[in-house]
């Protein structure tokens, strides 16, 4: 733990050097606002009291309808940063939170204002804003962003009750995952980057069948009924958030197999907003142009149904975007590395990093198609964004002090 005084030009950031296995959580010291305000300015030299604390976190929002818990996207994201994400040790076993060395992921269901019984009484779904406490969500995300710890409620998905809160320390990267990360404007403004996972109806149906058919009590009809009953609220409250996202991953049925309804081969679009700070969209061959590319041919042999890429500029809800699209499946390692070598602006640190990340989690769903590929790429983009933000802050300590 170091208290150092710095001049305006030196880096504000000496991250807490933790010893070996110490979790960052355990050596955290957070600075209160008053000590920051105590910095005095005399003439040219400025001094700051800085205690060994976590830098103010970078906050990422992920909108997804898959419920919380170890969602594949989150596991890929935390893996890019290194380390495995796990529930907080020694706490509520039904906690939805995941913590790794660098990243903490919380589930926004924890901000339900109505528990399962409450929602049943009022006849309101979890998708409805009336079931969620956006004021608390905003307060707590704001606190974390300012480097303060929070006592966050826990929504227990097994019992359907709100359990006593758990203490969450500000991490380097704070991810809020759930149905409404971008619903409230105040929360939206706190996000450094936001992602929306947009699953088309046909694919959603196919996935839910795979998930639930083995479940006693479920049938094709009940799965269908469940999706349809939730659709009005989903369309009214969740879907509109995608216009605010910096990146949308849209999952559609494949166009390579006529009348495919198994949802196994997928067409996935990565829709990236232009002009987002610290985010340079991935491109194929020539940035800003339009391309269709089938990598399978003389140099690369693919098995049925093959792989097809497209890239080009577009508009999405009035925003300028670049869209990278992949239809089909990877069958072999060399297909993956071949594709990676032709993509640009991937934010990899070495050649083959995307392939390596995909292989590391070959057992995860989507590892052989665009969902895994784009989730991995977004993970690398977020790492890049994080490093850029940290570098910026280091270059401007005076700005940081004003907060």
């Amino acid at each position, binding site marked *: 733990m170091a208290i150092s005084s710095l001049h305006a030009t030196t880096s504000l950031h000496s991250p807490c050097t933790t010893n070996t296995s110490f979790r960052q959580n355990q050596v955290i010291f957070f600075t209160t606002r008053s000590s920051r305000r105590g910095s005095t300015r005399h003439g040219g030299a400025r001094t700051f009291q800085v205690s060994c604390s976590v830098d103010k976190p970078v906050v990422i929002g992920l909108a997804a309808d*898959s*419920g919380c*818990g*170890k969602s594949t996207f989150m596991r890929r994201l935390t893996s890019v940063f290194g380390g495995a994400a796990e529930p907080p040790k020694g706490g509520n076993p039904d906690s939805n939170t995941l913590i790794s060395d660098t990243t903490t992921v919380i589930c926004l269901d924890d901000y339900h204002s109505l528990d*399962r019984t409450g*929602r*049943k009484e*009022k*006849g*309101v*779904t*979890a*998708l409805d804003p009336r079931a969620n406490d956006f004021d608390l969500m905003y307060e707590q995300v704001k606190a974390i962003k300012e480097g303060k710890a929070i006592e966050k409620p826990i929504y227990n*998905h*097994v019992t*359907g009750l709100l359990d006593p809160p758990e203490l969450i320390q500000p991490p380097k990267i704070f991810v809020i995952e759930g149905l409404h990360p971008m619903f409230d404007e105040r929360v939206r403004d706190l996000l450094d980057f936001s992602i929306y996972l947009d699953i088309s109806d046909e694919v959603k149906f196919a996935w*839910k069948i795979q*998930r*639930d058919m083995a*479940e*006693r*009590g*479920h049938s094709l009809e*009940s799965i269908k*009924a*469940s999706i*349809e*009953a*939730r659709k*009005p*609220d989903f369309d009214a409250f969740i879907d509109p958030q995608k216009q605010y996202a910096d990146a949308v991953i849209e999952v559609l049925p494949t166009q390579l197999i006529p009348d495919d309804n198994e949802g196994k081969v997928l067409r996935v679009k990565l829709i990236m907003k232009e002009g987002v700070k610290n985010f340079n969209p991935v491109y194929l061959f020539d940035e800003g142009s339009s391309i269709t590319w089938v990598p399978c041919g003389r140099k690369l042999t693919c098995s049925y149904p093959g792989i097809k890429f497209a890239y080009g500029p577009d508009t999405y809800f009035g925003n300028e975007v670049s869209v990278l699209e992949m239809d089909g499946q990877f069958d072999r390692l060399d297909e993956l590395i071949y594709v990676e070598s032709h993509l640009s602006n991937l934010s990899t640190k070495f050649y083959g990093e995307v392939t390596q990340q995909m292989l590391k989690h070959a057992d995860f769903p989507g590892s052989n198609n665009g969902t895994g590929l784009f989730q991995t790429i977004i993970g690398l983009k977020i790492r890049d964004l994080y490093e850029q933000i940290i570098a910026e802050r280091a270059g401007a300590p005076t700005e940081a002090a004003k907060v």
Partner: protein
Amino acid sequence: TPPELAQKVSESIKQAEETCADDPEGGECAAAWDEVEELSAAASHARDRKKDSDPLEEYCKDNPETDECRTYED
């Protein structure tokens, strides 16, 4: 699926079917199917967790110094 959760899922489905039979357009019907979705997702996560967990790995996470958990790097 852990039996307690599996039970909850099948009960919630029955419940939803009954509620919606009376009033298919109402909030109660949507809330009932939403509960089915929530429980189905929870059941799926529970199955995944069970799949991933290996008793030895779990033990070694908390007790890396014991004989069974020693690792050697060449």
